[in-house]
């Protein structure tokens, strides 16, 4: 599977791991990953260390996630390679997400 979710109750943290191409084909699966959890967590991490390519549809999916999760919770985008980090910075996603 291209998306897997791990929940760390102790740290109040959810990590969404994405593998391969982060694009429109993951639309429903990605939404499911954060919306099917029984409660809201304090921190969310989208682990992109295994993502090879990201298109503008994926940017839209991240924005949709940001809108769906309460503002008090932070969303960290982790492990993006240089190519993907550049796409995130061109669209100024640093204004809405914590990019690491």
């Amino acid at each position, binding site marked *: 599977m291209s998306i897997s979710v791990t929940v760390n109750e102790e740290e109040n943290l959810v990590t969404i791991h994405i593998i391969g191409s982060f694009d429109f084909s993951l639309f429903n699966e990605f939404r499911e990953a954060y919306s099917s959890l029984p409660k809201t967590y304090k921190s969310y991490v989208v682990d992109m260390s295994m993502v090879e390519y990201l298109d503008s549809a994926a940017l*839209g999916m991240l924005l949709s996630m940001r809108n769906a999760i309460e503002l008090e919770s932070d969303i960290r985008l982790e492990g993006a390679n240089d190519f993907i980090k550049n796409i995130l910075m061109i669209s100024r996603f640093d204004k809405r997400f914590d990019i690491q």
Partner: protein
Amino acid sequence: MKLLCVDSEPVYREIISLCAESVGAQVKSVECFDEAIHAFYDYAPDIVILDVIIKGGSGIDLVKKMKAMAGNRFVPIIFLASQTSDAVMGNCFRCGADDFIPKPFSEILFNIRLKTHMRHVELIKEMYRKNKALTYYQTMIEREHEMAHHVLNHIQTRSERNSEYVAITRLSAASFNGDLALVKTRSDGARLAFVGDFTGHGLPASIGALPVMQAFFDAVDDLLDIGKLAERINRILISVLPDYMFCAGYLVLLYPNGKILYWGGGMPNAFIRRSGGKLDQLRSNHMPLGILPAREFDAGLQSDQLDESDTLVIMSDGVLELKNISEEMLGNDRVEAIINSSYAEKSLITAQRTAEKKLAEYQGESIQLDDITLLALRRTCLN
């Protein structure tokens, strides 16, 4: 699942019926060639079991006939016979049979093999159903893409024609993404340009393009400040599009004296190729249009100066991500080299053609995945 049993011996007809019914098949038994042909037509079985020797004809001929009647439909035909020489069995398979079970047979093994064939029939049926559904959706999507092309091409016709001051190149990808490039000269002589790249594909992308086009041409008529236009487009897209869709873009206003004001969000760097060969970069430093609510939207403009024979070049990310035959993206360095050499040319129309040719050369035989938009502007001569 319907099974047709063709056997001239009543005992076998009975045993086969009992076995087949025990694994959940519905059975019709017949005893001669002609009955079998009729039953194949009327009863439309999913599986046929038959003997090599049948009253009124041969099993081999029967199989040939049934396979011809079945056409594209997958109907496994299984021989159940006491003639088990290699020659007979070989003959049976050659005429189109799918399996051969020797008589007398073990009920347990017969049932297992029958179940296997029934499973294959189910799988093939499922495959047909899915294939039909996929064909339907594929046709629908192709039509939507055609529709989107049509809408965007219509919008595009309202833009200014290419000249020695304006050159627009748009190359649509096979999987259509929704780039938009508009240029129009205002009544005060200033030229307004918009290069936009919508998220998403096909029809959804073109839905956002329609109101944006309207706002653009209204702004040309009303000499609207481009910061205000950016705000307006942002507001329109926030209300029209769902939250996962937006539009990256540059809005540029080029005055007759060469002064440039611009707003950029979510776009790759644009370039000014100075007449001396130096390349300056214009940065888009905002989030794309259609993301931030009005109260957070930043309409802050940047400015620059375009002198005579300088060229302002804006492109969508499809240019940077253009792949050659070995899957290598064009990238920033090669883009800079192409711009620098192409726009050294005095005539803008020739320069644009040269740039197009260089992009096509790089791409070679590989497939273009994203839309490509390349806009070049030069200031109008004052004299």
